[in-house]
């Protein structure tokens, strides 16, 4: 658990972070969003003391972070950044094993850990272990960066635009992998991004920042439906907010369970998002879709009326 209480950071005259309070529960993935220069990276870097906060208190599992030695604190947290920061003179395997080596794990344990991480992130050991970072593609390098952050199995993961500068498809793959990973490993993750779709897709808790302050925080759907002010509304997508919300809801939640008669028509998985369903309706000029389950059996029907209809989510 990470807790920030009335935390501020001043660089000379400028106040980068202004009296913010945040609680991030174990297993929660919090995403910080906001315009450039609003203090997202500063907030993240104060948590592992790459930047010392000026005022307030930061607690990790109830203990003030100033009570730890800096190095000890950082070795307990994973840290992944946009530029990856991989050491260009070390092999992929050595890069990933960095923190375990700093923690003086025995060599055999490090080796086993590196191997399992590489497998988990889709980087086969025999192909990638001895490669140098400059021999990797952008997506592979970012994976190695994430693997390195996970290496010592930290409870906390700090990620500053870790999938930035990637093409949309690779990006989506990595987002998906992070979600899966999170479902299995239950880390406390703090994630910074500029990509609102990425933020909405990943976040358990969305934190909207502006000029060093927190404008609003909460579940993405809550923020989409009831933005605190115009700034939050426009940052979350302005006119597109309806579509962004639709992207967070699934067909299964809105469909009408099927009666006896199986209808002919376009089919869509019940796991698809409402946004995908709407897109298909527009594309196919169809007012209703047949919803199918994983086995391809028709289980319901989604009409345009229902799709846009009453908010039946909560």
């Amino acid at each position, binding site marked *: 658990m990470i807790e920030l209480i009335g935390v501020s950071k001043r660089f000379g005259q400028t106040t980068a972070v202004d009296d913010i309070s945040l609680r991030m529960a174990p297993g929660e993935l919090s995403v910080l969003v906001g315009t450039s220069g609003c203090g997202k990276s500063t907030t993240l870097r104060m948590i*592992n003391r*790459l930047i010392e906060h000026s005022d307030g208190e930061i607690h990790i599992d109830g203990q003030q972070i100033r009570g730890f030695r*800096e*190095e*000890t*604190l*950082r*070795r307990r947290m994973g*840290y992944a*950044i946009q*530029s*990856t*920061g*991989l*050491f*260009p*003179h070390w092999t992929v395997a050595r890069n990933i094993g*960095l*923190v375990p080596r*700093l923690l003086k794990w025995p060599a055999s344990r490090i080796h086993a850990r590196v191997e399992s991480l590489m497998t988990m992130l889709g980087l086969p050991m025999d192909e990638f272990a001895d490669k*140098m970072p*400059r*021999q990797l593609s952008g997506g592979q390098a970012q994976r190695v*960066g994430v693997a*390195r952050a996970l290496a010592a199995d930290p409870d906390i993961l*700090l990620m500053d635009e870790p999938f930035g500068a990637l093409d949309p498809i690779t990006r989506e793959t990595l987002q998906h992998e992070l979600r899966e990973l999170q479902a299995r490993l239950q880390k406390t993750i703090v994630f910074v991004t500029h990509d609102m779709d990425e933020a909405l897709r990943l976040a358990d808790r969305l934190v909207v920042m502006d000029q060093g302050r927190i404008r609003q925080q909460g579940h993405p759907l809550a923020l989409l439906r009831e933005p605190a002010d115009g700034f939050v509304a426009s940052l979350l997508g302005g006119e597109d907010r309806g579509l962004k919300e639709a992207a967070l809801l699934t067909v299964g939640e809105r469909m009408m369970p099927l009666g006896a008669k199986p209808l002919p028509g376009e089919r869509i998985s019940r796991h698809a998002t409402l946004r995908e369903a709407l897109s298909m309706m527009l594309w196919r000029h169809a007012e209703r879709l047949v919803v199918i389950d994983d086995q391809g059996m028709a289980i319901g029907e989604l009409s345009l009326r229902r799709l846009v209809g009453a908010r039946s989510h909560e």
Partner: protein
Amino acid sequence: MSDALNPGGARPNVVLLSLGLAGLLAWVVFDAVSVAPNRIVSGQGHGAWDVAGWPGLVASLAPMLAMLALAWRPSRRHLRLALGLVVAMLAALPAWLALAAARLIESEMPQARLGIGAGVWVALFLLLLAMVELRTRLALPRLLGGALLLPPLMSLAVWLASGLEPLALRQELLARRDGFIAAIGEHLLLVGAAVAISLLLGVAIALAMRRWVRCRTLGFALLNSLQTIPSLALFGLLLAPLAWLAAHVEWLAALGVSGIGWAPALLALVGYSLLPMVRNTFVALDEVDTGVIDAARGMGMSRGQIFRQVRLPLAAPVILEGIRITTVQAIGLAAVAALIGAGGLGTFIFQGLGQAAMDMVLLGALPILVMALVADALLGALSDRLRQGAAS
């Protein structure tokens, strides 16, 4: 030119062709050697025709002509053959001189001296250039390129042992054998000490300049101005203060410090070495990717660990480049140090100039040249290797 780009080796290699033609011309036109009855009298020049007669002259031209033919259609195979020919020709030069000694010097002239003529010098120079060109074209690694010089050097050693006794250079060397070896030692010691001291100082200064911004501008301004003082003037400038120090501080005088000798020479060499050393070290350490350093800190590495395991290894190739520049420069500059009594190979150069004895000048200059080339090749190869390790 690679085979793929130029399958038949269709386009002639202009560099090799011009080097070869110039070599042929010099070989035929200039004196191959000069012969003097003793050290005092100046020598009488002899062309290649005098040395070997018509058949010999033609035979000596054959490999050069063959190389020209190969350069006309420079496929990779042809270039390899040409390189072989060049190495063979270099190795044959000492034999050629021995032949000249045997044919031109009569046995009743024990004092006679054989001087190397312009024709042979030019041929040597052009062949070395051709070797560099071929090495580059064939993309040979530096060390292999250096190893190609071994056959010519071995041939030289063999012929010096017997057959080249009248060679003036050899006689100068024998007459001053102890002095020569001592001079090489002094030279190396002076250069080694200057490079070592400036490396230690340079790293310390570079670190200070990274730490404190004010040191930075001041440091570079000072070092830049130091670099612009002509070397002899710098030696001169150090004369007075050192003489004063030696007169007033006993233990310095006991160490051998004085206005002339090794102390001002070493100081001046360190002065000149500092700028390239500091500049390279500073830039090398400063240009390490900030993202990498940020990640290193974020992973929980301590300051010392970051410096030793990340910053220094990533900066090493550029720092080594500074050491290379400094060393080569110091090897040359140390020759001037002889003027203020610091010894070294410069002694022979300046004495030889004073006595108008060119062979003695060469006795000092040639080893300096060789030392500079060897230092350059070794440190360059090391830097390449580090760079590969860092980047591959």
